[in-house]
């Protein structure tokens, strides 16, 4: 009877701990200092596929659309070299939807940032404390894709100059 009770107790604790750990792993919000290098992207077009494949909705091809989306209040992300996305919550002390130029000026740029990394329910979030390097736009994919979407470049550009 005593050994049955012991076994039973261990089973109960194991089952509960297992599920509790899964839940905690998805809701952790403890920050970790991070130095991250990646491209500033428009998360909606990248994640939704609304404009086509991921290779076409970054870089120069998507630059103007990224400006539209940022001005439109769509969350900005950092796409790192491993393909992970970090949703930017603050940029150098500034809230990301503040009507300033700071977040507009770095669209499509490859930056190196220092800040705090949070993970909550499977999503990476980033408080950018400082941008320590900006390599500018380094993905010249308009050479392959043109402007994405096509109407993000004026139809009669030359005649309007």
């Amino acid at each position, binding site marked *: 009877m005593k050994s049955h*009770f012991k076994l*039973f107790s261990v089973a*109960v604790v194991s*089952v*509960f701990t*297992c*599920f*509790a750990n*899964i*839940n905690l792993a*998805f809701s952790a*919000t403890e920050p970790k200092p991070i130095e991250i290098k990646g491209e500033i992207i428009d998360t*909606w077009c990248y*994640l*939704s*596929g*609304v404009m086509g494949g991921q290779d076409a909705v970054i870089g*120069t091809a998507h*630059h*103007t659309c990224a*400006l*539209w989306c940022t*001005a*439109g*209040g*769509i*969350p900005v992300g950092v796409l790192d070299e491993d393909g992970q*996305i970090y*949703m930017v*919550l*603050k940029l150098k002390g500034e*809230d*990301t*939807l*503040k*009507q300033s*130029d700071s977040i*507009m*000026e770095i*669209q*499509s740029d490859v930056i190196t940032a220092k800040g*705090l990394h*949070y993970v*909550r*329910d*499977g*999503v990476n*979030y980033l*408080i950018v404390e400082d941008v320590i390097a900006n390599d*500018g*736009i380094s993905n*010249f994919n*308009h050479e392959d894709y*043109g402007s994405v979407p096509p109407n*993000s*470049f*004026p139809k*009669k*550009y*030359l005649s309007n100059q």
Partner: protein
Amino acid sequence: MKIFKNSIVSVFSVLVGLALSTSVSMAEDFSAGSNAKEFGLEEEVKSTFSAKVVDMVCEIAGDCSDNCGNGERQLGLVRDADNKLISVLKNGQFSFNGAAEDLLPYCNKKVDVDGLMIGDPEEFNTQFYMVQLIREAGSDKWNKANRWTKKWAERNPEAKGKGPWFRRDPRVKKQVEATGYFGLGKEADIAYAKENQ
């Protein structure tokens, strides 16, 4: 002895119930009863649920602000069913608009929402939300999540004119003027136009 045994069984039942409800809610289907419009997006799933509207910076980093940042911060949804924080990328409009303006009137309130979960959950560990309809908990009246352009017009009276907002937006125009449509300067724009137009 019998009372002791019954107590152990009861405790076990509660623990297993809790554990199972956790696992079930993680895989719960929220499409039942949704009236969301389909967009044909990546891994799109209709999704309607009850949630609390939260300031994302406050919820995640504990840095809280009056009235959820008064429109200067991204807002999110903590879903009632599983306490999961849902990142909301988009409102129901077609023209490059986020959802903060639509969620702001419900800051820290309980709401019902209807929309689409999008994105490949295997690649990104989760999905993201496009809110199309919203109502305060207990209300019968759904509101369209389409406030953004009206709020933009109020903020930018000098940009009044024809055509979509994003072609008249002062911040967009300033950047395009400074670095061109590809971000590489005017010369790159001219070279592209000469080759393609």
